[in-house]
């Protein structure tokens, strides 16, 4: 259950991050409008959203795919967070931290469930 919450939390953070990035890209008074950095976080949050949704919805996905997506999500979260730091996009940075919490839940709750299943 916690893993499911974690995956959805990650997807929600990614979706909110995508909205924040889009606003930042088009908001002329925001400081990073129409910049490569803003475009980059639009792309990275969009990719994160797709990956998190696949993790949340495709429960029957093979373990190798889940592992690959989780690894990709971690890299995406860290990279987007770093970009947000240098873009001074503090809301996006906060969302990526929330997404990271979701990732941790998804990762470790998944692992705990797998351990329980193995013991049973």
């Amino acid at each position: 259950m916690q893993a499911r919450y974690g995956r959805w939390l990650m997807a929600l953070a990614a979706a909110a991050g995508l909205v924040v990035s889009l606003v930042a890209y088009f908001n002329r008074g925001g400081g990073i409008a129409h910049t490569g950095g803003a475009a980059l976080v639009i792309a990275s949050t969009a990719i994160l959203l797709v990956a998190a949704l696949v993790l949340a919805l495709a429960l029957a996905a093979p373990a190798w795919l889940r592992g690959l997506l989780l690894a990709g999500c971690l890299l995406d979260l860290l990279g987007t967070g770093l970009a947000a730091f240098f873009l001074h996009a503090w809301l996006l940075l906060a969302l990526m931290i929330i997404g990271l919490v979701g990732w941790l839940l998804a990762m470790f709750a998944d692992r705990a469930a797998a351990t329980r299943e193995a013991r049973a």
Partner: protein
Amino acid sequence: MRPRIAFAIAGLAAGLAALAALAQQPAPAAASFGGWSTFNGDLMAQKYAADAQITPANVGDLRKAWEVHTGDISHGAGGVPATDWSATPLFVNDTVYISTPFYRIFAIAPDTGRVKWIFDPHAPLKALTQPEMKTRGVAYWQAANPVAGQPCQKRVYVGTMDGKLYAVDADTGRACADFGRGGVVDVNQWNAVNPVWPLSLLQPPTVYKDSLFVGWAGKDWASKTAPPGWVFALDARTGQLKWTFNPLPANAWRQTGTSNVWASMSVDPKNGLLYLPVSSPSPNFYGGERKQALPYTTSITALNADTGQVVWARQLVHHDLWDYDINSAPTLVDIRKDGRTVPALVQSTKMGFIFVLDRLTGEPIYPIVERPAPASNVPGEQASPTQPYADLPAPVISERWPGVSTLADLVSFGECSRRAKQLRYLGKFTPPSLGAGSLEYPATVGGVEWGGGAVDPTSGTYVVNNSSVVMIYQLLTRQQYAALNRSEDRTNYYAQSGTPYGMHLTNFLNWLGMPCWKPPFGSITAYDLKTGRTVWREPFGVVQKWGFYMPRSWGSVTIGGPVITRTGVIFIGASMDSKVRALDERTGRLLWSAQVDAPAVALPAVYTYRGRQYVLFTAGGNSILTPRLGDQLVAFALP
């Protein structure tokens, strides 16, 4: 003695002491009281506002009061050159006036931002001299004894890239028919010597009594001969020519040109003196054909404002080979030094020196020393054996270039250090050279740019921002330059036609576009003019690349300048990151910042209207800094 009487006497003594101390303070000579009537706030270019509502304690509460988008912006598409909006807004006649890069004048209500009227001269939107559409604002004049019911008793003037000066009624925006022909004077009627391009009126005229003092900008680095640097004094009412001054003698016009005054000027109203920051002669980077003495080039020159006669002049670069134009109006201020009040002039420069002179005589208040300068190794060239140095106040940049940036060198696999070894560098004033070229620090972008410094006349604190930029000056033989015709990319190459050498001018960057030199790339410094000592120096602004903000300690290249208020608040845009800031005059500490649409590469204006103090920034951008351009005029005030 009874305690009450003792207190009274002590209080009286303290009061007298305070009065005596006040009497010792030089009075603010030309502060702007509740207005901002010239490009530099006042004629003495102090950039000082006597307004006191905004203080270091409450400046953090500043909010956007209003903004205007003029619509006059171009990124270079559609046949209109990119815009560079460096205009200082004026506040006078209960109205804010500003010109746009398309040379329209906007008259705006100072409290709401409502546009009262717009004047459009329908100027050609072509880069006739400068590469971009550019304006630094308008000028204002009003009759000493206005005639009621008559138009044009108050006037606003705007110049255009094609050399036309328009006068319009400040209340209605209608052309003043008695000025020139139907409200316009074509300055090019006097462009009779080497008229290879028009005299571009990008800097507003300086207004003093009933005269307009008009300088102009040209086309840099293009040719040996060019229009010589006339300064025109015009009648503010009729546009009739009163007098002219030319920094170049007539017998030099076949070898050189320019030495024009493209920056703002200042005036000492008490003594009737006009101060000209005179630019370098053409061709900018090779002087082999202009070896004669040209004492007014790259100088500060004081004229009698009524006659145009030279009162004194001081050359600040001999035989200029670096395009070290004197590029800002000198700041005039009375300073208290060694027990007496000295009428001073403070001149910031591209070289990073701060020259402090007696403004009545031109003699240095702090020493100026002639030091040996590197020789040229270019055939035909003969660099000046010495150059003037001012060690006090300390220059805004270091004597030697900052050295190779480890980060830039690492990511370019040693490109920066390899190239640095190939370049000729013998310290400040290394002449341009053939081959790989010369490393120049500072280079033509400064040091200090045209924004110049600001002074608090009560404390004697002078504040100035600067850039720290390393460039490469490479001369090319005519054969090498001709070979470029076969190459597609001629960016940063300049003909200097009529000379034996073309020119290649680049920033010292690695293949990633990173500066090869160590930060900070820009700073802001406060000096105590009474002693010449540095009070504080801080990296200023933030570099932004692809939207990413670099560390604060790197600072930013800066264009634009500061203003100071009576309460000790410095307002400044100037940074690459499109933020405007307030700093503490005493410490340099950041007190407030706000995001605007583009780098605010103009001087801010400060005024009080109906009991509320406003700070106005023009967020127009400049492609030298970043591609981000704007058309926003934005006012901030306390809630």
